[in-house]
């Protein structure tokens, strides 16, 4: 393998996955907060979330909090597993092994 999971490896998507992985299982993160953590523009973040959603790694939910529209994102089981595998691959590279 040339490099670990190419979908996750992109820097913005890596941060999105890491930010979501830090939450307890089934917890969702608001898009606005994710934007602060990742430090991406709204459009850029939205595009990367779509890529992760199409890969089945994240789930996006749109609803209203009172009258305010809200977009929330959470890691799926597949996403959690893929991210764990990705981190394991990084550690293997660091330890001199082949991912």
């Amino acid at each position, binding site marked *: 393998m040339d*490099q670990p999971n190419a979908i996750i490896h992109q820097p913005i998507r*890596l941060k999105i996955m890491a930010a979501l992985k*830090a939450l*307890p299982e089934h917890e969702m993160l608001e898009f606005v907060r994710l934007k602060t*953590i990742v430090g991406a523009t709204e459009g850029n973040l939205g595009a990367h979330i779509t890529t992760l959603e199409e890969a089945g790694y994240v789930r996006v939910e749109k609803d209203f909090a009172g009258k305010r529209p809200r977009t929330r994102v959470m890691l799926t089981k597949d996403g959690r597993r893929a991210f764990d595998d990705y981190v394991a691959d*990084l550690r293997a590279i*660091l330890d001199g092994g082949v991912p």
Partner: protein
Amino acid sequence: MPMTPAEAANALRDIDQTEQHSSTLHGYEKASPFLILWGVMWALGYSGTFFFPPYTNLIWLVIAAVGTIGSMMLGKRAKPAGEQKFSWKFFFSWLAAIAAIASVLTIFFPFSGMQIGSLFPLMIGWAYVVLGIWMGARLAITGLFIVVLTLIGFFYLPAYFMLWMALVGGGGLLVGGLWLRSA
């Protein structure tokens, strides 16, 4: 092109930093409604004690009951959908905390209103400092402010202590909660 160990190390460092940041903000998000609720409760309790001293016990009984029920509702709301059931562990933890303070008070009896009015903010302030050491600086700073302002009120403003605590204790928690939410 294969990934080098240096690139892998950079990616792991990015992951670690992002996870820490996310975890801190998540903690703030969960803690802030509790601080805001208790900020309002303290402001009402201490100002009630200042303006209507004969009703002090009744005021704090109501404040404790409303605050406890409110905290339980907030705790339930903070859980993800589908896991929002009544938490007996939370309920008994709360009871244990009240029992702990009550049992400590029994050995210090008799105490003044100012002493008991300082004890809770001091203990809670320090608890926030300890929590903040683990969860994030803003919580620790909020706790430290409450401790310092309580001591200032206790030693330098005894005549207006209850009013001072309503403003800086209740207000401090309220502002702290809003500060956490804005992070």
